[in-house]
């Protein structure tokens, strides 16, 4: 098949459609899936696969996630839709104590091949309970893979890898990327644990993921106009994360700025910065949100948002 221009939502839909055609044990379950999902990311799938495989559920996050664990143990490969990550908090026991622990605590008797989609990030004017970026919580948890696609091509290729992984995958799309368009090459699988080096440069490395990627590229362009050459590295997956790529770039540039939309305090940027400091020993800096809930009014929301200007300023301060 030839390359297609797809939105981020359509790209994921295509990946899931291909997986469901190839494997009758792949099912999806969650609230509002019968109408194609609240963000349209399942559009067309209810018509093709019917209500038995695109399963409309009650508003029961704990049971959606717990049932997915049971389904996986009984021979299915469920895709769980949590709608937004904020609602996945209602299913934390099922994610952390059940899905993540099952394989280890039962000595490998069972496997839990599920993909839990839980969109992260600020979605315009949605305020404190619909805007969080909690990827660090899950990266902290043994037994979980954590994926944060930034582009339509990656949302296609990483979802394919997630569906094939055989372990519980926390799959975090970004709510403000659903409509982003880009070229997607059907069949182009993106492996877990491999970062994407987007620009080359010798002055500093910007490590980021998800919504941070396009903003970091904007910042890098602005920096380049001022004669500063930044390498932008899209981490793509937070567990496993591509230490090789990060350390190689850090060794080359000697300065690493980690950028994420999540709150900076105890964010995953801290893990990367500390690891770089330990292994490479170069200068590190983090840029994340202040430790405040996301506010509703634009002026408040903007305090929690990343921007190219904020990234550029952080990069310049690292170069001082």
């Amino acid at each position, binding site marked *: 098949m030839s390359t297609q221009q797809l939105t981020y939502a359509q790209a994921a839909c295509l990946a899931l459609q291909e997986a469901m055609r190839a494997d009758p044990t792949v099912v999806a379950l969650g609230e509002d899936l019968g109408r194609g999902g609240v963000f349209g990311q399942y559009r067309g799938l209810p018509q093709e696969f019917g209500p038995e495989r695109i399963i409309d559920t009650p508003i029961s996050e704990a049971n959606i996630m717990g049932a997915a664990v*049971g389904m996986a143990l009984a021979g299915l490969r469920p895709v769980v839709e949590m709608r937004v990550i904020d609602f996945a908090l209602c299913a934390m026991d099922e994610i952390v104590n059940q899905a993540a622990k099952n394989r280890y605590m039962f*000595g490998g008797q069972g496997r839990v091949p599920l993909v839990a989609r839980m969109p992260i990030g600020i979605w315009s004017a949605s305020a404190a309970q619909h805007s969080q970026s909690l990827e660090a919580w899950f990266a902290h948890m043994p037994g979980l893979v954590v994926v944060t696609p930034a582009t339509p091509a990656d949302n296609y290729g990483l979802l394919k890898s997630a569906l094939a992984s055989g372990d519980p995958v926390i799959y975090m799309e970004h709510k403000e990327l659903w409509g982003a368009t880009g070229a997607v090459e059907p069949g182009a699988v993106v492996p877990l644990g491999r970062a994407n080096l987007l620009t080359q440069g010798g002055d500093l490395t910007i490590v980021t993921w998800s919504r941070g990627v396009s903003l970091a590229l904007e910042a890098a362009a602005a920096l380049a106009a001022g004669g500063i050459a930044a390498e932008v590295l899209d981490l793509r997956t937070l567990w496993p994360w591509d230490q090789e790529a990060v350390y190689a770039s850090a060794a080359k540039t000697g300065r690493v700025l980690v950028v994420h939309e999540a709150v900076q305090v105890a964010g995953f940027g801290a893990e990367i910065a500390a690891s770089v400091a330990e292994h490479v020993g170069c200068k590190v800096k983090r840029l994340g949100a202040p430790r405040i809930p996301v506010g509703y009014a634009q002026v408040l929301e903007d305090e929690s948002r990343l921007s190219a200007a904020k990234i550029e300023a952080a990069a310049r301060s690292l170069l001082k």
Partner: protein
Amino acid sequence: MRRIRAFEDAAEIASQGGVAAWGLAAASKPARVRGPLHLSTGQEAVAAGVCQNLVRADLLTSTHRGHGHTLAKGADSTRMMCELFGRANGYNHGKGGSMHIADFSVGMLGANGVVAAGIPIATGAAHALKLRGLPNIVACFFGDGAANRGPFLEGLNWAQVYKLPVLFVCEDNRISATTPTGPMTAGEGVSARAQALAIPSEKVDGNDVEAVDAVAGRLAAEVRAGGGPRFIHALTYRFKGHVSVDPGTYRDAAEVAAALKADPLIVARAKLLGRGAAQESIDAIDREALAEIDAALAVADAAPWPKVEDAYTDILNTGAGVWR
């Protein structure tokens, strides 16, 4: 039933001093069974009576008090005891212990350290069986305390909405850890909650294995026939404390004494003798059970420990524990 009692009694002895709790220090010499051990002593008739009506390919989810369910579903007592001893040839290779006892090969999908957590898992397993067109059912065991957690409502609703093949079994031992469940539970209790979701529910004397078997047989057949979920409320009593080192002295002595008289083993023995069974043949069952568990203890005592590197296996295919 007799095998479960023998297993629990042996595990109880092997666990003394295994964990610091109830004002008692852990023994200086590690116990053979370390950590919290939740015994189902006194509740054997529920496990035995229900599992009598399951086949190997049926599935089962359990609770933290899960040894009886595991044995009754057909697991091997030796590999179970090895797991309690933390040995490499235990069911979970020493990674789970008592609280996570499981034998997936007989459909026993695991004991669970979180109250009510098995309920959503059971509904999902049943959902999978239904979608895959398989003829099997899931038995979902939980305690009276579970009825006050959210997943109880979510799971029962789910099972009824999708008409799933689940046999819910509330093993009502009247106590939530150390707190009597009755005063903590509003309304008419667990059966009423099931009935509010239009799930047919039956109450049964959980210390009478024949009665449990009869109810479970009837309800399991209805579930198997595609009738959707059914609910058994089995009234029983936990003879021991919450964990094996808990003397359970917070309970009324008269209540405990009365419960001990209704021991499911005594009830079953009396019924058998009343029908003319030979004392000797019942004693032989006891002896066989004790000999089986003695042998399991001997194997567990001699079994190898896991290796340090086993701490890093069975986590993830990608990036497990250490990076790549």
